[in-house]
């Protein structure tokens, strides 16, 4: 079992867009990683590139962490530009500490009102007389001292990261770091406070530094994806950018599309050609892809779409997280279009779920929509090397040269051999029109019924094995959730269990087809179910109501983004429930 959070510190670094808060946070996380720690960093920012606001939210722990803590121990403000826009996301406690630049203007009233101790450090002034020195590197020095990070180690990281920007930047950054690291105000304040205790055995396995988007990329490549079509959209673009050079490294390619209508059709074209293909997008782009996804279902072309969810509807809150594309993923297509919907539960799980999505789409010759969200996709974690085992899944069933080939033959499993262009004597026309077994367009009722049955049978009769959900813990109380809310639920359940209230967490990874018998078994002995999701419309609850019989008493904790649900809120809600 994981030891108590004896060394578990949460820091927020804020500043105007371009001030370098994110860079400082990333370097801090890397340094923590070099020191054997685990951790997580979320980025919170507005949609502007410059002149907006940015916050690096960093949690460092001696145990793996997959979500943010309830409150921040330390807030470092490079400036107070637009601080009110993310003040909600940076909860402070009375014993938290603020480090702020006194020259950055008035401290916002909301923050002053908290009564939190504030240490004024003139970061901008300290950096000013250092050539190429920047306040964010002073901040990194301050925080590194606070965390007890070895300065030589930091120096080496600065050399490595800024090497390409030239020697002046490296020297300026190192000097600014040193000035922050030795700043007497912080040295004194640190002395006055107890050092965190390190407890538990040191982790000696291999660790990864991974974002959710990178996890999806790794899983996609492991699953065999060798073509991607891309139209830029926040927060999915960095997944596509990560894939671009790596697909080429493996002999594949990426094609930038003119829009999402094109990108999904490019995916269908490549997959028709026999090459496993994927695209990634977010809500508005996914909406444009639904027409093409219907085609892929009808023509039985394997296709994978990763929808990195953000606040909606419309442009919504494009840089921040929400779990509200579930309805669209489940029900957005026209006609009766059986397909797969999966949701990744944490960073490591992005790898598993992406690989599984690709393998399932290939084996079942249909669409897999994989859902992640901005919170997962654009945060980084330091975690033990991800390990998982997928059930045996057959590859795409291909047709060899054969006489009288029927592309849409009515087989017992519903899966029929697919001829790849280049295969002699199997030429056929893939069609979005309803068709007979050969592929000839047909409006006959019998053909429509037979092909609808076939396409449903592929999914309904397939054995998805144990990966349908991630189930942890015991107890009569269960938290039933999906997506990135799973990690928060797990941390809450651990705290509840430590407090003597055993709590089970059931996180659904495979959302469609639904697994009602498996969920009923997983809920055996459960009398209370808390349904947890980040959606204003309670989309997950409505999905559960439609597809499952839950006999236990149900309550919900549902909230729209972008404010993350914290473990503490879940604990409080379950403890109040008596």
């Amino acid at each position, binding site marked *: 079992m994981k030891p108590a959070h004896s060394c578990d510190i949460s820091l927020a670094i804020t500043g105007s867009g371009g001030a370098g808060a994110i860079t400082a946070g990333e370097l801090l996380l890397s340094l923590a*990683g070099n020191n054997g720690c685990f951790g997580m960093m979320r980025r919170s920012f507005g949609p502007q590139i410059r002149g907006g606001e940015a916050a690096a939210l960093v949690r460092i722990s001696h145990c793996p962490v997959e979500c943010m803590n309830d409150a921040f121990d330390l807030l470092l403000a490079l400036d107070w530009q637009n601080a009110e826009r993310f003040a909600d996301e940076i909860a402070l406690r009375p014993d938290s500490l603020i480090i702020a630049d006194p020259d950055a203007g008035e401290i916002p009233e909301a923050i002053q009102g908290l009564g939190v101790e504030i240490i004024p450090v003139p970061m901008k002034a300290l950096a000013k007389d250092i050539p190429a020195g920047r306040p964010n590197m002073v901040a990194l020095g301050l925080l590194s001292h606070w965390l007890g990070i070895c300065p030589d180690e930091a120096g080496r990281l600065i050399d490595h990261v800024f090497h390409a920007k030239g020697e002046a930047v490296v020297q300026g950054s190192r000097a600014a770091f040193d000035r922050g690291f030795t700043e007497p105000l912080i040295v004194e304040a640190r002395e006055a406070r107890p050092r965190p205790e390190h407890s538990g055995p040191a982790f000696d396995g*291999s*660790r*990864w*530094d991974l974002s959710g988007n*990178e996890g999806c990329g*790794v899983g996609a*490549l*492991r699953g065999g994806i*060798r*073509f991607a079509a891309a139209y830029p959209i926040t927060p999915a673009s960095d997944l596509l950018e990560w894939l671009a050079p*790596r*697909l*080429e*490294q*493996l*002999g*594949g*390619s990426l*094609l930038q*599309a*003119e*829009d999402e*209508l*094109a*990108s999904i*059709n*490019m995916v*269908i*074209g*490549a997959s*028709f*050609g*026999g*090459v496993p*293909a994927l695209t990634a997008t977010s809500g508005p782009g996914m909406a444009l892809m639904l*027409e*093409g996804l*219907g*085609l892929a279902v009808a*023509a039985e072309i394997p296709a994978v779409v990763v929808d990195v969810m953000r606040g909606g509807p419309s442009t919504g809150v494009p840089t921040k997280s929400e779990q509200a594309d579930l309805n669209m993923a489940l029900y957005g297509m026209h006609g009766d279009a059986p397909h797969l919907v999966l949701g990744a539960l944490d960073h490591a799980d992005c790898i598993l779920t992406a690989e599984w999505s690709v393998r399932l789409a290939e084996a079942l010759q249909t669409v897999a929509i994989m859902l992640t969200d901005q919170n997962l996709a654009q945060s980084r974690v*330091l975690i033990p090397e991800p390990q998982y085992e997928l059930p045996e899944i057959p590859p795409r069933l291909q047709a060899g040269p054969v*006489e*009288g080939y029927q592309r849409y033959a009515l087989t017992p499993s519903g899966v029929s051999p697919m*001829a790849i*262009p*280049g*295969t*002699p*004597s*199997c*030429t*056929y*026309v*893939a*069609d*979005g*029109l309803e068709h007979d077994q050969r592929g*000839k*367009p047909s409006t006959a009722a019998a053909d429509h019924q037979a092909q609808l049955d076939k396409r449903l049978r592929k999914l309904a009769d397939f054995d998805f094995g144990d990966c349908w959900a991630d189930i942890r813990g015991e107890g009569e109380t269960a938290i039933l959730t999906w997506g990135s809310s799973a990690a928060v639920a797990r941390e809450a359940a651990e705290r509840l269990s430590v407090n003597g209230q055993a709590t089970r967490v059931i996180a659904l990874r495979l959302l469609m087809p639904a697994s009602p018998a498996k969920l009923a078994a997983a809920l055996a002995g459960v009398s209370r179910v808390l349904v947890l999701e980040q959606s204003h419309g309670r989309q997950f609850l409505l999905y559960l109501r439609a597809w499952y019989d839950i006999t236990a008493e149900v309550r919900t904790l549902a909230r729209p983004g972008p404010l993350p649900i914290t473990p503490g809120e879940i604990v409080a809600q379950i403890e109040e429930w008596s």
Partner: protein
Amino acid sequence: MEHAQTSRPPGPKEYKSDLKPIWCPGCGDFAVLNAVTKALAFLELPREDVALITGIGCSSRIAAYTSLYGFHGVHGRALALAAGLKAARKDLTVLVAGGDGDGLSIGGNHFIHACRRNMDLTYVMMDNEVYGMTKGQASPTTAADWSQSKLTPQGSRIRPLRPASLALTAGATFIARGFTGDPNGLAKILVEAIQHPGFAFVQALSPCPTFRPEQMEWKHQVRGFEQETSSDPMEAARRIRADDGMSTGIIYRSDYPAFQPGSGAGGDVAAGMAAIEGELRI
């Protein structure tokens, strides 16, 4: 085996399927089917190495009438689907076909970007200046004063697009116009188009006897271009603008290199994956 390997290359008929085309008597699209199969027979391309990608509309039904690999996809998106196929399978000969509404209205953006992307595709736009399958509405190439549609009883009152002009502006590297009343001439153009190593756009004037019976007069109006094919876009633009849209032939051809994504490299996949995953280790 039906298509057993023999030394004899297939004749034009063998590029046709056994489905009887469901087109109106007199429809120009029959001649496009004949021209495509003639061109493929002339080039002696194995049927399994050619893919014909289409959208939606009367003309887009052509895929099912061939014995090639085909994809009858969604309205307007054939060019995007074909780009994905060609990106993944550069070994295939990829043809795209559809109508003027499919290619210039709902698929207009894809047309522009297919031209500028200049992948090695051949696109035949069967232009009858009308939406036939939905029973006769004005398309982007319909004259502004054509008032026979219930949807626009006073005419569209919107100037028609010139497909060749748009293709040139957008960056197509082969632009031609053929006429279904001259299937041999169209087949010759298609042979050149398929051999062109880049995006080849062929506008096929293809009359609709049902909704545009007046187009049956096109056979008296069509003529060959007087000039040779140009490789100068300014000259081609001038020629397209000066023309009434009824001259046929290869208007423009440029040797600007075709685009093919991917480096074509890729060695040991296991070693490649290990390197990629190694980047993520601390």
